[in-house]
Each structure stands twice: as structure tokens, then as C-alpha cells.
């Protein structure tokens, strides 16, 4: 087994090969910042064991639906079956946005990397925001 850091040298058994439980990410995640100019809401849906994401971002005239994309799910470690994050890509033509999410203390900490491909001379930028699950319990 090849590794670039010793923590990646792990024993793999049947339990390790079990599918990740992705239910912890399913649901409607709301930005903790009501004044965000970025992503307002993440809608995570589970279909046939796969997770997909629909993003709603803040626009000048209301929310903008980015559409649905597949996400790559990530565990907490190389031998872990506990979901701990995800990555995905939105390609808008004029720009690409990479989303890299990490679950911390029940929040999604979402890093957004925006890369402009047009001639607008806008600089690529990075934003990190927090999202909480709208669980409706309290």
C-alpha cells in the first residue's frame, strides 16, 4: 500500500469497505450569515446512495439557482466510514466555482474557490462560510 503520510497506511477490512452513511449531510443547510453576498442555501439530496447538491446563491434580485451537481463524498480518515466532507465543481462558462465542505461540530464549513475564465480581469477569490442544518426541532 503506497502512502505519502503514515496515517494513510491502514488496515482495510470488510467493515472499511462498507458504504459511507451519507444521511448526515442530507437536508437543507442555511448560511449562518444573513448578510452573505454568496451562497445562501445548500440542498443536499440522497438518491440511490448518491449525494447531489443544489445551490441557491444571493443575487441582486433574489436567489439564483445554480442547479444540481453530483458531489464527491469524503470520510474522516482513510479507514473511516463516517462522512466528514464533500467536494464538487460548478462550471458557469465565465467562471468555475469549486466547493470544498467539511463538517465541524454539526456545521458545514464551506470553502469556495472562484476562478474567473472571462476577460473581466476579476481576481480569483476564496470565501469560507458556515452552514447549519435546518432541522426544525426547536
Amino acid at each position: 500500500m503506497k502512502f505519502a503520510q503514515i496515517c494513510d497506511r491502514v488496515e482495510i477490512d470488510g467493515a472499511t469497505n462498507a458504504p459511507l452513511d451519507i444521511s448526515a449531510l442530507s437536508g437543507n443547510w442555511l448560511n449562518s450569515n444573513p448578510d452573505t453576498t454568496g451562497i445562501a442555501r445548500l440542498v443536499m439530496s440522497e438518491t440511490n446512495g448518491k449525494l447531489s447538491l443544489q445551490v441557491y446563491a444571493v443575487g441582486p434580485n433574489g436567489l439564483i439557482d445554480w442547479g444540481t451537481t453530483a458531489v464527491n463524498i469524503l470520510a474522516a480518515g482513510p479507514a473511516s466510514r463516517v462522512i466528514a466532507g464533500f467536494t464538487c465543481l460548478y462550471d458557469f462558462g465565465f467562471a468555475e466555482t469549486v466547493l470544498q465542505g467539511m463538517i465541524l461540530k454539526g456545521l458545514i464549513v464551506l470553502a469556495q474557490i472562484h476562478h474567473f475564465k472571462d476577460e473581466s480581469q476579476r481576481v480569483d477569490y476564496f470565501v469560507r462560510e458556515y452552514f447549519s442544518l435546518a432541522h426544525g426541532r426547536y
Partner: protein
Amino acid sequence: MTQSYEFRQSGHLNPALTDPATRTLNAEKLLGRWVNTNLETQGVAEIIIEQEGERFSVSVVGVGADGPIQWPKSRATALANLEEEAGQRALALSATFDFDFMRAETYLRVNKGVLVIVLFNTFRDHSGRSNYVNREFFYRQD
């Protein structure tokens, strides 16, 4: 910034994105040799961030079984980090490390003098290992 630009969120229209001052953000806080705050780490021991002109590179040393493992040096993408608290503008970096058996997509930022790296690791070798996310913290060792 005029709204003739294409956008998918209001943030894409932030005037700071075309402000010349944003293009020349000082990278000094990121540059140098950084050592993991966790003496017992089994992951990344050390990071060196260098700048040559407008180009940035990131060198990573992993903890190995028989000594340090030098990762292939990666060219990094500089990103304006406009959302830091107190309205401060800073630089963040993204860098990808490609191995034949694994790919590590990372972002790096400095928060209150601590370098934070988040690694999104994907295995390509069908070893059965889970793809995973990990975060580590580093202090500057000049």
C-alpha cells in the same frame, strides 16, 4: 463594478475583485517554513511556501514510516481572501498534489498567525481506503 459582468452570486460583482490593490495583496504572512503544531502528527510535518514573481509554490513533507516523505512541489493558485473578519483582505492559496496512487487538493490560509491547511484526499489505487478530509495547523519556523 458594473453589472455588465456575468455573475451567479452578488459576490461575483464585489468591486474589490477589480481593485488593483487586491491584485497586489501582500503574501508575506504566508511565505516561509511552517511546522505542524502537533508533534505527534501522522500526516504533514512541514510546509514551505515560496513566491517567485507572481508564482507561488508549496512544498510538503509528510511523516513516513522511516523518515520524512518529500511530496512533489506544487504550483499554487493565489486567491484573494476578501471575507476575513474585520474586513481585512488577505491571500489564500490552493494547491493540488498528484501522486499515482492519490490526489490531495488543498487550500491554505493564515488565521491569527497560524497556517491552516485543509486536505481533500482522493485515492486512485483501489486500495479500499476511504477518500477523506483532514485539517492541520502550523506555526512559522523562520
